[in-house]
């Protein structure tokens, strides 16, 4: 750390930035994937015969993922109000 650049802040911005900026979209992706039935050639044929239903586990996973994303957005707004 020196007077030109605050390395501690830089380091934190990179790590937390990766968690929030890349982690949250990834979590959103996991949620999306959990909601949509797996699409292999075999299951696609199977789905045509019976209605495609998402498993309860999938729904729970998706709800959890989206809840975490929403909570993070709430935290972001909170940090705007309190910081800048």
């Amino acid at each position, binding site marked *: 750390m020196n007077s030109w*650049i605050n390395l501690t802040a830089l380091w*934190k911005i990179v790590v937390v930035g*990766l968690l929030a900026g*890349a982690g949250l979209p990834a979590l959103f992706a996991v949620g*999306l994937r959990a909601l949509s039935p797996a699409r292999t050639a075999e299951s696609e044929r199977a789905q045509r015969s019976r209605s495609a239903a998402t498993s309860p586990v999938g729904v729970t996973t998706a709800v959890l993922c989206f809840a975490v994303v929403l909570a993070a957005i709430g935290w972001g707004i909170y940090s705007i109000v309190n910081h800048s």
Partner: protein
Amino acid sequence: MSSNDLLMTLVVVTALSFDFTNGFHDTGNAMATSIATGALPPRVAVALSGALNLVGAFLSFSVAATIAGGLVQSHLVTPTVVFAGLVGGILWNLATWYFGIPSSSSHALIGGVIGSTLAAAGGHAVLWHGVVSKVILPAVLSPVIAGAIAAFGTYLVYRLTRGVAQGVRTRGFRVGQIGSASMVSLAHGTNDAQKTMGVITLALIANGSLAAGHKAPAWVIVSCALAISLGTYVGGWRVIRALGKGLVEIDSPQGMAAESASAATILLSSSFGYSLSTTHVATGSILGSGVGRRGAEVRWSVAGRMATAWVLTLPAAGLVGALAYEAAHGIGGTAGVAVIFVVLVACGLGLYLNSRRAPVTAGNVNDEWTGSLAPTPAPVGAAA
């Protein structure tokens, strides 16, 4: 109306004009990707962004008295210096908008104020250490960091949704994009509206209308919030097109990853006291989202043009700011400021009229990128 009242009115009007250009120049930072991927219709996107900028401007009341704090010796600043700095900022913003280059409005303003301060008081009035550590280094680092985060996010998102049907994925991420773009708009309102509030407050203090260290008065907060949100709503379509279509062919998962990276970088940095340029961060993120997706086309020549403009922003706006100060000071007093104001209006009008010859609007902003900013007119009925 006394001569001093007229001077202060001109300074405030110029500052609000700058705020307006700041708004329409930066609409693309938040909304370019959402418009390009069709997550939001162009008109709806700018309206949403404008509304959120308005809300953002009111979210935080801890407006610092000076934007220039730590950059120039604020006791050497006069209303004319502030005015000349704003002229530099506005002209640079308008010129880059005309060429469809997303350059930083904050840098334009800072450059203009530094230039006019240099002309007015000389080199000792500028705190160069502050300029390097608070402005230049963050400007170099932030697009790289945001770009890396966006690239990583894009990679993860495509990897995780490999098995998901194309339609589901596109629709799902469009929803996510609206959320992340809204966060960027909100953060923009909080950051950038405050810069103009700070400038007007600085001018009021320099004029003796406010005590030093005073917070921005309520009328300043309200008028700045309205100016930036109106500017955002008008929409800088030329910049939106360059960011959303010119830089990278973008899809909704990339869009969401890019906006999330932007929002995270801006919010985190401002909580550490760095007021970053939203433009640099957003451009870096969009570029990163192109790098992170295999097979996506990244137009490095367009990126290079933008980077060149970023390097030029501080000196160019500074030069105009310095010239504006010399001219206003040379003519002297309020008359000098009034003359420069007229010149500024004429320049703005000229650029606007020129832009109408090959306009970019809500209607053609998403047309195929053929290497030029203004889309070549499509045969009737061919383009939406």
